[in-house]
């Protein structure tokens, strides 16, 4: 068992090292695509901490991304970059705590649509605040270079992946999965269900908050409707469902698949891309609910065992 883990860890480090070479080998456009890919990986790996492991689906995860972005917007020029990134994560985590505490006491579909409502609510509040401050969009001057942002995002994506994997294998992860299987039975055998759900939700918000602080500097232009866009939430969910939401490899696969697809279609046929996304989501939920990763795992199990 340990030898397999060692091999996996080595492979992981090799991939990260390879990815770190990208800014030196690729032109700016491809580095930008790679940056986007890393962003989605970081977001999707964080999303599954609650939604994949417990089955409490968060349809409004963009709210943490947007919150981080807004923290960066407000703190830009006032606080140094390396301080604001974790600050964005902290604020997003606190927001999750504030949302989770009342909201994770409701079951099933209520929580799902509630997360959606909260995300939209936050979006319109920020729009109102910005309007109140007289700002119709903000320009971010003096942002770090694309390469610098790339390395930060690589770190975030790697961290998200590792955290997802560690949680999956941990005692905490076992408790979360028990909640997914049967919440009442889990509680009866001692799993502190409410506490764990809130903890998982909070954890799932931190890296997306940090990702938001970075991405808002990439476009150097902040507009609330963009960073709180429900499309971001939808894409995260679809990537995790298609890739597989039970374990770290899944979201990675989903992100790679969808980013590739979007590279093919988005420029010329954005609606077709979206229709395909919707169809894939429906198809996978019905036909392959464990995603690509789950499908691979099932094939290997049948061959090996």
């Amino acid at each position, binding site marked *: 068992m340990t030898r397999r883990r060692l091999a996996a860890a080595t492979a992981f480090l090799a991939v990260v090292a390879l990815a770190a070479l990208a800014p030196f080998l690729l032109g700016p456009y491809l580095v930008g695509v790679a940056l986007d890919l890393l962003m989605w990986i970081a977001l999707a790996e964080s999303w599954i901490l609650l939604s994949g492991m417990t*089955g409490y*689906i968060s*349809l409004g995860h963009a709210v943490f991304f947007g919150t981080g972005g807004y923290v960066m917007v407000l703190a830009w020029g006032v606080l140094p970059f390396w301080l604001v990134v974790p600050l964005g994560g902290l604020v997003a985590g606190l927001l999750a705590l504030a949302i989770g505490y*009342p*909201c994770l*006491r*409701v*079951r*099933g*579909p*209520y929580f*799902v*649509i*509630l997360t959606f*409502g*909260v995300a*939209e*609510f936050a979006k*319109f*509040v920020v*729009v*109102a605040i910005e*309007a109140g401050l007289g700002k119709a969009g903000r320009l971010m001057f003096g942002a770090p270079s694309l390469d610098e942002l790339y390395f930060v995002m690589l770190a975030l994506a790697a961290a998200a992946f590792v955290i997802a994997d560690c949680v999956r294998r941990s005692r905490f992860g076992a408790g979360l999965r028990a909640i997914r299987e049967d919440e009442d039975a889990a509680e009866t055998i001692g799993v502190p269900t409410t506490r764990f759900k809130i903890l998982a939700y909070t954890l799932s918000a931190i890296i997306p908050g940090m990702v938001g602080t970075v991405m808002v500097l990439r476009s150097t232009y902040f507009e609330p409707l963009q960073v709180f866009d429900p499309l971001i939430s*939808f894409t995260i*969910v*679809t990537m995790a*469902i298609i890739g597989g939401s039970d374990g770290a490899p899944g979201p990675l696969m989903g992100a790679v698949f969808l980013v590739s697809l979007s590279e093919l279609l988005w420029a010329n046929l954005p*609606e*077709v891309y*979206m*229709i395909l*996304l*919707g*169809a*894939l*989501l*429906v198809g996978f*939920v*019905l036909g392959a*609910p464990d995603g690509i990763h789950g499908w691979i795992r099932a094939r290997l199990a049948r061959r090996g065992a």
Partner: protein
Amino acid sequence: MDSLLSGQLLVATLVVGALYALVALGLNLIYGTMRLLNIAHGDLVMLGAYVSYWGFSLASVSPLVSMFVAMALSALLGMAIYVVLVRRALHSTALVARIEANSLLIFFGVSVILQNTAALLFTANPRAYAYLDQVIRIGDAAISANRLVVLVVALVVCVAAILYLRLSMTGLAIRALIQERDAARLAGIEPERIHLLSFALGFAMAALAGSLISMIQQVSPFMGFPFTIAAFVIIILGGLGNLMGSLIGGFLLAAIETYGVALTSASFRSILIYGVFIAVLVWRPQGLFGGARVAR
């Protein structure tokens, strides 16, 4: 402050309330009988709106005629979605255990497909047409004829739907299924038939609302979304499965929205709706009138 008491706001509340109630009733019908939350519901409103828009623009057909076409098409779509997608999920042991979460995802996907298909076919530009826009005066309020028609038709259909559910045999069966699934089966009611009917009716009502709305508002591929949210707020306010509650809730939400906006500003409309949404879900998930029990 005396503008707050004007007949104008009351009229606006009534029109919007009747539309909201119509949309919410359809959503509640599907939820009540099947416990499935149709996130794509607002997009059926959008489809109905487009049917009437194109009917009028291309063939000068009155929306009061094309609304029947919209309802029929939507009902067919609803039954197709039920048979092809929902029933598969219900019959799969792997999926039915978490049917609520899974069906939400499925409807989410359907919503995205509907919205972007409309955007692909019709472009995202908002469209409108003028029909029956003469102004009628009632007391100190002025109302356009089309708004009056919307109010009357929506209200009539809502009342008719509730009466149908109260008085007809099928309606009784539907209500029995809503209240007590297993007992209803024992009484010989086939859930399958009722599910199909619920989808057809629910989808048809949404499309009807869309046809009506197309007379008084711009039509665009992403217009349905606020109606989905409003419908959710209403069915939770009124109680999931509680149809009369949806009727009252529709007017209640419309009142909150109309008077809230009058007190603050138009840009606060979304904050108001989502704020009410969150408040109700967190503090009184069983709604103002109780009804279905919330699983804890």
